[in-house]
């Protein structure tokens, strides 16, 4: 499990979801300065955000998303106490899950 920060804050009828993921998002072109070797492609391919058990965001990503990806979304109809769950899977099959409660 890699570290992830996720927050869900209600503002009126819209809930702002902000997530900061930990991932190198290597595009397969960068050279390691120490070894001179190309760092292999390593990036998050799919990410979902669900609110109260329902998928709200279903994303497909490329290696052109910045390292340690940051995303913000807006979801209507969420209630205080609803659980927000973010899941991602990368091109090596590594996964991570993060959770927050709507406040």
């Amino acid at each position, binding site marked *: 499990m890699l570290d992830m920060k996720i927050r869900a804050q209600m503002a009126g009828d819209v809930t702002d979801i902000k997530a900061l993921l930990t991932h190198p998002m290597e595009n397969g072109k960068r050279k390691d300065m120490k070894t001179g070797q190309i760092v292999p492609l390593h990036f998050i*391919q*799919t990410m979902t955000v669900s609110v109260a058990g329902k*998928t*709200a*965001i*279903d994303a497909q990503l490329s290696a052109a998303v*910045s390292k340690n990806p940051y995303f913000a*979304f*807006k*979801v209507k109809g969420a209630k205080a106490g609803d659980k927000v769950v973010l899941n991602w899977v990368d091109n090596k099959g590594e996964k991570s899950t993060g959770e927050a409660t709507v406040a």
Partner: protein
Amino acid sequence: MNQLRRTILKGSGATSAIAVAVAAGLLKPSELLAAEWNKAAFETKTAADTLNAIGAGAAVDSKDIVIKMPELAETAVTVPVEVTSKIAGTESIMLVVEKNPNPLVLDMAFANGAEPYFSGRIKMMETSRVKAIVRAGGKFYSAFKDVKVTIGGCG
């Protein structure tokens, strides 16, 4: 997941193949997303090929898509981007950086109360036109913004 357009785009053939794989215990439902990553579109190398691969070759220009990006990107490896669609029935937003080696950056589908909006950070290889493509009601709409980059972020 069924109401999301990805399943529709893939066609019933792909969907039933996945259903069979699930039934046979080859795939756990939680692994379905990874299996659906649109490799063909993400590996395209020109903006025209990308648009064709996502089916948006005939996208119509729209003023109802708002792209917020800096005109001059100070750090090419973390260029902030924010896209909002005011088009009714928006199902998904795709982001295409025309001059990147692989122009398709991301594809986000919205459902269950999610507003057609996202904010994030992306890498840009060089000065480029950035296109946001919106799919709504089976049709494609697009808007663009030109962003200047002084030092590339993909090398």
